[in-house]
């Protein structure tokens, strides 16, 4: 357990010096706050920007940051040094996953300031679940990629699909028919209703299938490539 703490501490220190990862974490919460407070269009759905950016944040930040962190450590050979220091692969992955999840939850916390207090627990609960799926997907790519260049080229299309499909689905029914099978789209549906009572079983099933798929791919990638 101590090694997980060490990895989290290391990442926290590194985040403030790693502008590319820092921007991922900060951009959407800040944009959501600015847009929500600055733009008021008649007939615009309530909390439109917060809900939109929350889903984009979920599909983008954890996915790209986890993949970038793991692939950078592989490329620079610092991961091997950690393994030689008897940090177990699962400790490393748990540390990175926990760190990204905590930072993203902090971002979600910032976004939730626009919401009525009664909706905050629901919002944070849904976001927490979505972040876990994105982290698992990002870890798959990070484990599979030998370096940052491969990681970026793999993560870009995945990230674009998961983060932008829910937005595009609002304007195009055909896209919606496909996007509904993505966890980000179903989380957008949950956030639109914003109640535990309004959760449809279909949404839960699709999110659960997405989560299972991400975990299966994660373990398959780990079994095939390991962390070296």
């Amino acid at each position, binding site marked *: 357990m*101590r090694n997980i*703490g060490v990895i989290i501490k290391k990442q926290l220190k590194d985040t403030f*010096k790693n502008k590319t990862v820092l921007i991922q974490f900060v951009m959407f919460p800040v944009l959501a706050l600015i847009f929500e407070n600055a733009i008021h269009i008649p007939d615009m759905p309530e909390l439109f920007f917060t809900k939109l950016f929350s889903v984009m944040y979920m599909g983008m930040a954890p996915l790209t940051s986890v993949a970038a962190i793991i692939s950078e450590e592989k490329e*620079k050979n*610092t991961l091997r*040094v*950690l393994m030689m*220091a*008897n940090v177990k692969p699962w400790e490393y992955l748990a540390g990175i996953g926990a760190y990204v999840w905590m930072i993203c939850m902090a971002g979600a916390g910032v976004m939730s300031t626009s919401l009525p207090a009664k909706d905050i627990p629901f919002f944070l609960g849904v976001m927490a679940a979505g972040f876990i799926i994105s982290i698992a997907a990002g870890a798959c790519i990070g484990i599979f990629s030998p370096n940052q260049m491969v990681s970026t080229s793999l993560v870009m299309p995945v990230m674009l699909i998961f983060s932008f499909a829910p937005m595009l689905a609002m304007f195009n029914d055909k896209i919606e028919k496909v996007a509904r099978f993505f966890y980000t789209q179903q989380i957008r549906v949950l956030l639109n209703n914003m109640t535990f009572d309004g959760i449809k079983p279909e949404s839960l099933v699709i999110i659960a299938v997405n989560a299972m798929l991400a975990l299966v791919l994660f373990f398959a990638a780990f079994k095939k490539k390991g962390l070296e």
Partner: protein
Amino acid sequence: MITAKNICKSFADREVLSGIDLDIRPGTIFGLLGPSGAGKTTLIKIITGQLVSDDGEVNVLGKNVKDLTGADKKQIGIMMDDHGIYERMSCSDNLKIFADIYGVPYSEIDKTLKAVGLAEAAKRPAMKLSKGMRARLRLARVLMIFPKILFLDEPTSGLDPTTMKYIHKLIIEQKERGCTVFLTTHNMEEASVLCGEVALLNEGRIIEHGAPDEICRRYNHQKKINIHLTSGEDLGLEQESDSAAVISRLLEQGKIETIHSSEPTLESVFLELTGRKLEADEEAKYA
């Protein structure tokens, strides 16, 4: 402290190591010498458990390398040529990560940075360090944990002579505190200065081993004395009683500029055994 029996390793059809036997005593500096591609890094990776050999057995700290526990591994410091450092973090923060992992008090960080000559650069990001400073930071990372065994893969490769001497001093200090050092190098001078025992590795086989002086004496076939005279002439005399009178006369006449016996170096022994030069191969690698 470290024993290896009949280590063999192949990658695809290429045999990289064949029948390697080693027995390294505690508290000594052992040097594995060989040109680029001889199999030095592969052997160090097998001994440290990073790679599994196809055949043979490795024992470290009295246990099969496969059975080493986490606590055992914490007594082993490994500095590989390609091991990275956290570029955006300061020297001090780089060491803090490993101090946390190994449970080393933070007070050791400043001491270690001072010992490797990086005290002034403690707060500097690693990306702003020179090559020599980075090598010293990598070394600091393993010295800080006070290992019982230290594996150093080409610790001075590509470094300037000043940094090289500094690192030699640090390695000797480790030996003096009782640490067993296993180092790979292609630098003959480094091996002669540091190592109590060396093994010459060529194409995956140990072709000679022993103390550097002993190896050199073993291959001293010529037994000649080379004299460079003040007149610019070179004179080669056999090591026999008749030569003593000649040398004595030349000394009295003040005609001797330099005088050397002709013991071979590790380099010339390697050349004799393999027909290859050690350092030339390395130079070709970096050319």
